[in-house]
């Protein structure tokens, strides 16, 4: 009787060991498969390039006969405000231009690494003022880029794709 129960105990121990081994292997396998590979190189670079090309874009606003870029407008808007030669304020011009740019880019099927963008959130933060271009349902996956430049102006871009 004692012999029988001892044998049973040994077998159940063996079973437990096999189950444990399987669990450990499973956990290691899961750990490997769930390990994130990090965001794509292209996503980051493409987004940075897009952000900086938008900031370099020349707007219709002229001041003293010189056309202003988005970056120039952001600097002027953050400091004194002021108006363009068409009597529209620099801040309004800035807002309207970035909104039109992103609306157009989305309309023409802008893609980030061949992923179709369904929503965007582009913010030029000038401490007290903000210029915002935002459209679409801000959910699902996104790629984002934030400028790190030693000025009072921070720019963040976030693009949502399905």
């Amino acid at each position, binding site marked *: 009787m004692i012999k029988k129960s001892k044998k049973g105990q040994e077998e159940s121990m063996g079973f437990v060991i096999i189950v444990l081994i*399987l669990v450990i*292997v499973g956990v290691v*396998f899961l750990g*490997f*498969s769930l390990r994130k*590979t990090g965001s*794509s*190189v*292209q996503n980051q*670079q*493409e987004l*940075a*390039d*897009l952000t*900086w*090309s*938008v*900031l*370099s*874009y*020349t707007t*219709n606003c*002229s001041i003293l*006969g*010189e*056309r202003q*870029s988005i*970056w120039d407008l952001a600097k002027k808007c953050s400091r004194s405000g002021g108006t363009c030669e068409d009597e529209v304020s620099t801040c309004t011009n800035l807002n309207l*231009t970035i909104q*039109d*740019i992103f609306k*157009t*880019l989305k*309309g*023409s099927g*802008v893609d980030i690494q061949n992923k179709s963008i369904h929503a965007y959130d582009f913010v030029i933060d000038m401490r007290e003022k903000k210029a915002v271009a935002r459209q679409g349902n801000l959910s699902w996956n996104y790629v984002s880029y934030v*400028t790190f*430049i030693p000025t009072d102006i921070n720019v963040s871009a976030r693009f949502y794709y399905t």
Partner: protein
Amino acid sequence: MIKKLRYGGQIAHDNVVPRVGSHARQNAISNLPRFRKGQLKIQEMAFVLVGIVVLVALVLLFFVAFQSMEANKNAAYYREARAITMLEMIASLPELRCSSSFSTTSESVCLDYDKVIAFNSSEEVQNNYDTLWDNSWVSKIEIEEVYVNSSVRKGKTYTIYSKESEGNVKSYATYAALCTDEPSGLICKIAKIRATINMP
């Protein structure tokens, strides 16, 4: 009919060792000599070992499949990184980039519109860089205006290099400012540089 079964090298008849599962069979086995019991145990162990080997083989198979998947992913990642570097390299070529007199934001990729036009309009200029692009497996480079102004949404496409591609190709793109120096100041549009690369 008398069926013959072998137990430890000896022949046992069906009528001696009854059918599997019956108490009589258990009794018959327990009544077998010790060395036969040992043989049964060895058989049992062999089955367990075969089971473990099959299990380990399955795990190894999974692992190898997973590793090869990872290797493919890594290869794609590095190929992509290389393509991006290539795009940045294209944009920073002195033959294409804006001159230092252009006062754009320092971080932006800036392409000189006049230089782009020069490339686009002359196949001879394009072919001068044939070796460079060939060595980099580039088969096509285009610059496309994606935003000109509020009235002209999509602009033209300019070709920097074009060659018939062989086999598999993949396109990579990034954005750049396409600028021209005019009397009213620097005028920049938003453009896309697209490079088509021959895949191995």
